[in-house]
């Protein structure tokens, strides 16, 4: 690239149809309450981990739904499963189980990939 002094960067666009939503399907099958999220952000606001890092459950929900799994894969490891999010959710989303299942899905699919 030094030949040009600049590079060709990948588009930031979420290509919905190209993305892999197997993780969110896995979760929805077991925890349909994920559908109820209205992205109010209450969970992220109270989040114990969010107090220290940029981890946002709200963001995670949406990225999972869009199949943007890679970002979630990294961040979700910082969740402490303390369950405050479930207590504050106005829509009764079982957020704790969603995190739990997401981790599980990643683990399952990773190990299958191996």
């Amino acid at each position, binding site marked *: *690239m030094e*030949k*040009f*002094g*600049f*590079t*060709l*960067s*990948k*588009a930031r666009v979420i290509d919905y149809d190209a993305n892999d939503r197997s993780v969110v399907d896995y979760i929805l099958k077991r925890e349909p309450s994920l559908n109820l999220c209205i992205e109010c952000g209450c969970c992220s606001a109270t989040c114990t981990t969010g107090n220290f890092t940029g981890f946002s459950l709200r963001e995670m929900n949406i990225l999972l739904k869009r199949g943007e799994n890679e970002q979630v894969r990294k961040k979700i490891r910082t969740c402490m499963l303390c369950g405050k999010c479930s207590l504050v959710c106005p829509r009764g989303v079982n957020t704790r189980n969603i995190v739990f299942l997401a981790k599980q899905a990643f683990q399952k699919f990773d190990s299958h990939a191996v």
Partner: protein
Amino acid sequence: MENEGKKKIWSEYQKEIADDHFFYVRSCIRQSFYPGSEQFFLDFMRNVLGKDVFENPSHTTCTGIGYHGDIVPFSTIMTVVARHFALMKESGYKNIAISCVTSFGIYTEILETWKHFPEELEKTREYLYKATGREFDIPENMAHTSDIIYKFRNEIAAKSKNLLINKKTGEPLRVVEHIGCHYAKMFPKFGVGGAEFPNVLSGMAEAWGGEVVDYPERRHCCGFGFRQYLIQANRGYSLSNTAKKFSSMKPFKPDLVLTNCPGCNMFMDKWQYTIKDMEGTTYGADGESIPVLTYEELAGLVMGYNPWDLGLQFHMVQSEPLLRKMGIEYNREDKFKTKDGRQMPVPKNLINA
């Protein structure tokens, strides 16, 4: 459904295009990168249609690139444009024909500004007078030269020697039309067919037998973006936008890209080379790159001009594949010969050659 719908929109966006007596203002980069284009326009207007097209040697750049590069302030560029109007007045013309979409955008922007803020107009008159002692009138009719070619597209079709049809298969050629953002996106009423479904180039392509393809990123910028290009470290943005656009049109297997903007033409042409060089991607059918032509160059081909007189050899993406499809004879030897037959140095890395 599609065409009826578009016609309906076009009917709402028809603009007055003068018929004769044009004051012609050139484009800075076209005359250096694609010299055949303006050459053809003048030749076609004067010698084929016998129109009066006047050029004033004291005409300068509109400083649009400087303006969009945040170097030239608005008051300055207004004065520069005012000077052009003054030159036009002095040469006794009322219809301005602008060869460059960037300039065209600047002119429309300035005219709109003056309309909504007359005080700016007065200031500009004052600046110009103080600086040059000149006075000016606002043109009665302002057209981009692609508007004018659009106006006379059927005359060209009538005189055509080669149509946009694949000689072998008889299929119409698939044309991607790319309208420069500054042509109508700012002020749809100044563009033939408006901003969303412009007709100025598609009209030509269809009149000359081609088939226009609509693809998801049709409206997307060519990637020039002035500032993004002018700073080397930022050129990645420019390049990435062009790549996005081409990968969106790739499935349609276009035979050529038709542009009406010097910048677009340059970037869609040269970035194809860069992308190919960087990661080996090409966007045309069977591994070729897509020739990018200006409307004058295409009109020239349709009317049977010699491709080398039109300066097609000065593109990064060579147009031989297109010429073959259209069944146009060309002479390999003459390709890089001057008029008086001297051999010019042959550039390396040409694509499609």
